[in-house]
């Protein structure tokens, strides 16, 4: 099982210092866990990071967060990383390529994973929160986030590219000593990179925006708006309040609720032989 994690030179959303984007740190956690599940025979087969850009130092933090080895393709500022990445990935042929679902810094568009999937002719599974070995050999089981805690489980065979959703397990801690021990392999540019697509961007300082609550009453009292925001008029208000129920009854009620919202399959109408 060969796993590559795509790394980008990100910026902290508040302090704007150069950091490894959180999503990619989460991708590393998924990669190391999956690597451990498959068993890592040697250092060369362990999950590794891949970065194309002017400076490897920008992603060196990944070494402290769980990766032992980074590959760095030196590109000039503003060059399109896709051809170089695609060439390198075609050469190393990882079974799984993980990337963040969106960029976190500079002029990133978040389109790189899609461009790579097209260039490598691989399926892209978006927004995964967990990856585990599938039951059948050679398959992977990916849990895809559909937002608000809902998940879809997909089983895929063959090399695949996946992007990571923020709901994935939080990143591992940065270990200074590990970062010291990790290695960065510098690769020369593999293909002549053209300039990246120029996307007109306007930069503005980050500002927290109020959340738009769907179906909120336009007017109404503050209490009503709060109710709408906390969902008390929605699903939560439809529940039944049981005070000090006996365990049997409570279990039945919970099961019935889980069936109602479709988490647990409905009872089998006739018993299996």
């Amino acid at each position: 099982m060969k796993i590559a994690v795509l790394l980008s030179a990100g910026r902290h959303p508040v302090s704007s210092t150069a950091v490894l984007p959180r999503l990619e740190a989460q991708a590393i956690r998924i990669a190391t866990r999956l690597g451990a599940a498959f068993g890592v025979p040697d250092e060369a087969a362990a999950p590794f990071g891949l970065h194309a850009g002017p400076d490897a130092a920008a992603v060196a933090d990944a070494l402290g967060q769980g990766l032992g080895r980074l590959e760095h393709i030196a590109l000039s500022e503003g060059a399109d990383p896709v051809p170089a990445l695609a060439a390198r990935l075609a050469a190393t042929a990882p079974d799984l390529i993980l990337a963040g679902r969106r960029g976190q810094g500079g002029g990133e568009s978040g389109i790189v994973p899609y461009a790579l999937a097209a260039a490598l002719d691989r399926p892209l599974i978006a927004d995964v929160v967990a990856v585990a070995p599938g039951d059948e050999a050679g398959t992977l089981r990916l849990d895809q986030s559909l937002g608000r805690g809902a998940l879809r489980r997909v089983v895929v065979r063959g090399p695949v590219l996946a992007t990571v959703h923020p709901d994935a397990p939080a990143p591992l801690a940065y270990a200074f000593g590990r970062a010291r021990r990790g290695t960065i392999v510098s690769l020369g540019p593999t293909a002549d990179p053209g300039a990246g697509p120029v996307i007109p961007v306007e930069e503005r300082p980050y500002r927290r925006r109020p959340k738009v609550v769907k179906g909120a009453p336009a007017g109404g009292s503050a209490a009503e708006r709060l109710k709408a925001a906390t969902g008390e008029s929605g699903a939560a208000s439809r529940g039944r309040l049981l005070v000090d129920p006996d365990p049997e009854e409570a279990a039945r009620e919970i099961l019935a609720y889980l069936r109602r919202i479709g988490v647990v399959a409905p009872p089998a109408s006739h018993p299996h032989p």
Partner: protein
Amino acid sequence: MTSFMPLTTVFPGLVWTMAALALVQASRRASLWRVGAAAPVAWLHGLARLPRRYLVDVHHVVARDPHASRMHAVVAGGLLAASLLTALAILPPLAGSRAYWLLVTLAFAVTAAGSLLVGARRYPVKQKRLSAGRFQILPVLLLAYAVGGTLTALLLALGAGGIALPFALLAAAGGLGLAFEVRQGPMRHAVAGALHLAAHPRPGRFEGRPDTALQPLDLDAPRLGAAMPADFTWNRLLSYDACVSCGRCETACPAFAAGQPLNPKRLIQDLVAGLNPAEPPYAGTSYPGGRAAEGPRGPLARLIGPDARIHPDTLWSCTTCRACVEECPMMIEHVDAVVSLRRYQTLERGALPEKAIGPVTELRQAGDPGGRPLAARTDFAAGLDLPLMADRGQAQAEVDVLLWLGEGAYDLRYGRTLRALVRLLRRANVDFAVLGAEERDTGDLARRLGDEATFQALARENIATLARYRFARIVTGDPHALHALRNEYPAFGGHYTVVHHTALLLELIRAGQLSPQRLPDLSVTYHDPCYLARYNGETEAPRAVLDAIGLSRVEMARSGKRAMCCGGGGGAPVSDVPGERRIPDLRMAQATETGAGIVAVACPSCTAMLEGVTDRKADVRDVAELLLQAVEAGR
């Protein structure tokens, strides 16, 4: 034997044999300490100061338990005197003097009395904080040696040495037993304890300085922090061997009281047992939660892990409050041990507790554990005029007070305290300014959690910022920031005069710049922050401020340098290791016991922890808030 050698020679000979046996046992032990890392030790100075360190510093701690202190003085003094006198009797003129033997009798009799006091602590029922095991036979050995010695010497004094042989044998049994125990029994504390006092890793403790700053870690060292016994310096290994299992640290430990899986005595004993595979089993109270794992032993054995001797939860439960260090009669440095072990876990393994990863990462990336914008630090002062250092320009004269706001500034509740402090400074016409968005966290949290790299990076950035400005002193309401700035930044080139806000307020009152009214109707009890009282020895200024406003002030059972922690230090709140109770609840209950309506605090962490107690009977108010109330009552 007596047929060809008189008892007056055999008996002193016994003491010399004991000394030789003790020496053999001690050197066997010392070979274990030598696996430790090198450490600079000022031997000559240490040995010269040994008597003073023992009689003054150790006694200061031991005397807190008058019974134990009396017991130890009698038994140790008697034992030492009796053995020395007997040993000297190898000289024929002394051996021939009956008066001399009477003196020896007296010394042994004192030892015997002392042995009974030792026994009284363990029989019929052992005091709870003491360890059993090999310690239970100690009074028996002492008594055998002392009684045998008394009778032998007495008969020699009476000139009836001929019938004294059975008693000399009794003394020999006891005495050789004691000497044997020097290697891994109770008597080890005497040898290791004395050497530890001479080779103490924090000699400043004996020179009247609160030597409490964590020692900087060389980030280029091949291995960061301690993973196994051999990673500790040799004098640290020696110090753990000095532990007498008295359990005073256990009684003082807030995490132990809260039922979290930490017992400082067991922790030290685990370090001892980790080093020495032959160590007899631990016979004291264990870690709460009753964990049984034994784990591998030996100088290269891994100490921390779910299957090792020390569970990671034990390590992360510590609030670094130093209560154990304060109480330890053997002057052992528990917090240093905890931090060395944490450094390895964090720096080499990235094995921070899951909940602490977020705050430490934000600290590293954004200079604030909450990942909040640095410019928002001054938001608490909306409507107050808060002068910025940057606005004063370098050409201007130096500012008297640079007000360090600390992390508390982001907290809504603590913002109230800072507003009160700023109002007081204005009222007293103090020339002050803040760094505003240029202030980064001091890195205290990262350092206590073992992330020395992040701490050092933040320290360097803050020191560079401070170097751009001219100020006479730094004032802060946060004792954690105070400790870092005052005691830990000097190692990185930042030397400042740092004053706690309570000390400044007292100064302003004394100088007449603040004239508070009296508020006699309020009753308060003052909770000492660990990082102010124990780490910096400051317990009087806050009390003097409270007294200046005429509150009726009562003390909790544990106060001053012996106060109990609120649970807020050492990253414990972010690590959040589960226990049976919560530390702040325990402390609040102690405050409630005094009957005071207000708990006065002087630290943002204490404020947050104590305010967070549900069903509080008392109000939590910072000293600055109370003073402002008294000052405004005058208008």
